[in-house]
């Protein structure tokens, strides 16, 4: 049974097919309005989420299907000590496809091994979040017309940000990509990703602590939040926090077609004044997230029927 646990479960050609499918859904929504009629999506969210759960539910509803599930572990049998495997086997009797978020890393893989229906990883702790990566890829594709020959800047917490790690991994499979890593010393991209992903795929990259100095180079700016709890002391946090807040004046030297992205939720790392800039793409990104999830649900259900 085909599932999506890690973005690398799909080849680049499969990702391209999904993006093409999402584009067709955007252009012809009526064509897809009843594609999943009679099908049920189970959203098993063992920890809270606003965007991802509602995005999956909206995706299934727009495909004409139905949704069931829970939005916190306390309202499931997990509270009674049921294993992930048993939950997955049980839900396989009720639904046609599962979207699972779980605080434990690897839980969706365990579910996929036990379930008789496709499982989509909707985030497992700090590990993987492949549908966010697909969302990011669709956003880049639509805003920039493809992936090749782009300079992509990642700014903020590059050490713990799972969305950053996954997107870098996914982009490293395309030609002509250049990566610019912008972060405080304390939150630099882990060396194993530089070695296993960037160096292994001959992806050129540069590291800097200064966002403004590299701004003119960037085609994409992927912002993430610098969190207070990641610092060893308050002084360092206070010294660095404003360096990684995007404000209109920092965009003065940016390209006119820069695409500013953020996985959301944001706290203060992008000032509200940037929202009115036509280069701000983060709310479009949310919308694209629904369309790529529609494409994904369709693909996995079609493969399950085969």
């Amino acid at each position, binding site marked *: 049974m085909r599932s999506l646990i890690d973005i690398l479960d799909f080849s680049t050609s499969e990702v391209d097919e999904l993006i093409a499918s999402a584009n067709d859904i955007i252009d012809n929504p009526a064509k897809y309005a009843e594609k999943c009629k009679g099908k049920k999506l189970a959203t098993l969210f063992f920890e809270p989420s606003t965007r991802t759960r509602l995005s999956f539910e909206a995706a299934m509803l727009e495909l004409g299907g139905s949704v069931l599930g829970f939005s916190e572990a306390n309202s499931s049998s997990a509270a009674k000590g049921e294993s992930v495997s048993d939950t997955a086997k049980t839900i396989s009797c009720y639904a046609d496809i599962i979207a699972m978020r*779980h605080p*434990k890393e*690897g839980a969706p*893989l*365990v579910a996929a091994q036990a379930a008789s229906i496709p499982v989509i990883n909707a985030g497992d*702790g700090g590990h993987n979040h492949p549908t966010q990566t697909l969302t990011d890829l669709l956003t880049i594709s639509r805003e920039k017309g493809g992936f090749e020959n782009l300079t992509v800047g990642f700014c903020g917490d590059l050490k713990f940000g799972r969305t950053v790690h996954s997107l870098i991994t996914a982009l490293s499979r395309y030609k002509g990509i250049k990566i610019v890593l912008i972060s405080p010393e304390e939150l630099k991209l882990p060396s194993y990703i530089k070695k296993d992903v960037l160096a292994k795929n001959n992806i050129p990259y540069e590291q800097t602590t200064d966002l403004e100095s590299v701004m003119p180079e960037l085609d994409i700016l992927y912002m993430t939040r610098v969190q207070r709890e990641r610092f060893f002391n308050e002084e360092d946090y206070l010294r660095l926090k404003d360096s990684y807040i995007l404000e209109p004046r920092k965009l003065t030297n940016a390209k006119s077609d820069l695409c500013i992205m953020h996985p959301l939720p944001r706290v203060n790392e992008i000032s509200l004044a940037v929202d009115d800039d036509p280069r701000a793409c983060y709310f479009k990104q949310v919308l694209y997230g629904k369309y790529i999830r529609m494409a994904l649900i369709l693909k996995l259900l079609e493969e399950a029927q085969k």
Partner: protein
Amino acid sequence: MNIDSITNGFVIDHIIAGRGMRIYELLGLDHVDCSVAIIKNVNSKKHGRKDIIKIDADIPIDFDVIGYVDPGATINIIRDGELVEKRFIELPETLTNVIKCKNPRCITTTEQEINHIFKLTDRDAGIYRCMYCETKAN
């Protein structure tokens, strides 16, 4: 130092000195009934010093464990007092229930009866990662 020859069993030879006990522990040799000898710091032309383990019984042996701890070790299979096979091993692609993931956020810490599986992700550096959370094995 004399250790009797074995009749039916295994001689795990050319173990890098100091790794013999780790193999002994991971193979669970402290729980078997047969005679087992672990010889440490034996003179070796190849390594200078080496460890040797002799197991005097035809018990099931997980060769992957030996490959994981020391892929340079050799396994001599003895039947009726004769060497019938000399096996050279390498790092196994997968380790199942040999080591446990130490990441407290990994599903293997809470899911009962789940197999602890590690995949070889970098053969040159000998790096294994948990199949579930991708944490590097120590």
